[in-house]
């Protein structure tokens, strides 16, 4: 007997089942076909300006800085401003995201290079798939557009979030991914990022910048410039 068969047989023996019971199979099939949303906290259930303000509140609570601009054409200037305000070099790494590519980076003095990060980049920029109001989190998908290495290797991570992509909860992210053809299978990596990297392993004190980015800056594009 293979390990697989032995373990499955062991599970069934312990549970006192054969694996062929129709009600059990039906219960599992139903659960998978119609995922239950369960308890979704009210605190993320906001829309419009309130949603952005709530996102900003929870992002700020975990040391993510947030700026709001009125259109994609303002993202490069805001990026340059943030880098300069933090005394960082005017260099930037990004993937092949078409929304980022369409922005007027040439109008700034930023030195932009493309592709995944090999570990030498100080600053990286990504476009988020979604933002989660409940926790001030960003959802980033792997792929050529926004390589996963840019989320983790640069010291400073800038993430662009379209306010239309702000959803109340993680459950809404799943609903959107399931609705899109690329949801099966999921992208290799779905990152939910809530603040810059940190560790409490030295002296039982929290310090930022353990292995991932030391700083996380979010630029929200909100045509209503609500805040």
């Amino acid at each position: 007997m293979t390990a697989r068969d032995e373990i499955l047989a062991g599970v069934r023996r312990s549970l006192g089942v054969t694996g062929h019971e129709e009600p059990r199979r039906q219960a599992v099939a139903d659960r998978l076909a119609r995922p239950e949303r369960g308890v979704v906290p009210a605190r993320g259930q906001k829309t419009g300006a309130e949603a952005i303000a709530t996102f900003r509140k929870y992002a700020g609570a975990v040391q993510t800085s947030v700026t709001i601009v009125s259109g994609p054409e303002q993202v490069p200037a805001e990026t340059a401003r943030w880098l300069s305000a933090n005394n960082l070099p005017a260099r930037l790494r990004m993937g092949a995201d078409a929304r980022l590519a369409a922005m007027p980076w040439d109008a700034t003095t930023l030195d932009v290079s493309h592709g995944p990060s090999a570990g030498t980049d100080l600053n990286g920029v990504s476009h988020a798939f979604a933002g989660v109001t409940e926790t001030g989190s960003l959802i980033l998908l792997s792929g050529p557009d926004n390589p996963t290495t840019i989320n983790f290797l640069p010291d400073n991570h800038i993430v662009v979030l379209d306010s239309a992509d702000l959803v109340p909860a993680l459950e809404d992210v799943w609903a959107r991914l399931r609705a899109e053809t690329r949801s099966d299978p999921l992208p290799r990596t779905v990152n939910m990022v809530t603040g810059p990297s940190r560790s409490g392993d030295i002296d039982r004190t929290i310090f930022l910048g353990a292995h991932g980015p030391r700083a996380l800056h979010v630029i929200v594009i909100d045509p209503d410039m609500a805040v």
Partner: protein
Amino acid sequence: MTAAITSPAFRENAHQALEDKQLQAVLGTMRTGFSVKRAEAAAALPEFEALRDSARDIKNHTLAHLDLYLEQYEAKVTASGGHVHYARDAAEARRIVADICRDLGAKTVTKGKSMISEEIGLNDHLEREGFTPVETDLGEYIIQLRHETPSHIIAPAFHLSAAQVEQDFRRVHTQLPPERDLSEPVSLLNEARQMLRQHFLAADVGITGANFLIAETGTSVIVTNEGNGDLTQTLPKAHIVLASLEKLVPTLDDCAQMLRVLARSATGQDSSVYTTFSTGPRRAGDADGPGAYHVVLLDNGRTGMLGTSFQEMLRCIRCGACMNHCPVYQAVGGHAYGWTYPGPMGSVLTPSLIGVEKGGHLPNASTFCGRCESVCPVRIPLPKLMRHWREKEFERHLTPATTRSGLALWGFFARRPWLYRQATRLGAATLALAARGRGKFAALPFASGWTQGRDFPAPEGRTFQAMWAAEAGKRRRAGGKPGAKEQNP
């Protein structure tokens, strides 16, 4: 570093821990650290208690249908280009991992935090097989340098001071200038970041644990604050996931429920910094990510827990809340428990996994104050399960006569009244109720079940009486409501 099992020597281990002044100072910070943060996070979310019910129900449902969810999960992993390997025991799991590393011609193996890796003693095995395993979680890295084992499941180096870490870094990072300033703790963090970067970039294989496995999509989930798990699994040629069978949940939505209680119970965070969902290897056209994805599914005694009263223990999501709130853990630390899993969860799990002969002492390391159960996010009745083990141990006549009479552990605490106070103060309300004004404990908090037919005088009677008087006074003021609040005697 692989744990040699020292669980049978819990009492000796505990004695040593109590003499260790540095350890005692560190453990003293626990009450104001994790516990307070958890309480604040729980209080800030009105839905928290409902989420705990939801988390419990999800795990119960999954365990009741575990065979079917395993089949579904495996099919999804395979469909996304990954491989699932089943391992009956620790030796088989170690062999599978080493074989994968050998097939890839690997030299360096980076590792994210994984309790399963500790459970199966993976690092020693990889070293014996000629590979270089490098722990990348900062706490795990530090204890690997010291050839120690974790003392806490989410804060492995919890027992160490910054000065100790500085000594280790100076001893091991000899390529750095000896005159460098490491007096600030943050400089230690930066040095570890710099050293581990090189390992991340050089590694051939990355091994992580999994907080959850999702049957719906064949996805593994890791939760970290440092980002080390992500660098571990993204940069090398292959990503190996080590997980035990009970990590499964049915759907992505179910996982979202679990995540809400995990971070809050563990560290008091609303969400950990990095929650990462990994499905298969990198796709055609992807700019980065591992070329191969393997999941090693470990049984190691867990199927034997299904269908018994210990099935409930398989709901555990390894948040560490039970040990953070445990007066015994707070008194003796994690190493005294003598194997991978410390605290109340370890006291129940260890005898299940390594046998009652070796782990049977651990369920005695309880005051039965009930704090662990009251904070467990999946509502595992830990005190009840510890009692079950004690009954089993008794039935099998594995217990020395002194322990059977309750005297051994009682004596252990009775000789240390301060420890007794500490161990019972969180459960003071229970204690006051147990004594019922008789000045004696009919049911000792350490020994309920042992004390039937025998009353012990209360230790340090004056202190007890003072506490009792205060409790009684409070009861009178509160209109007969006994001991509703925690009390520091």
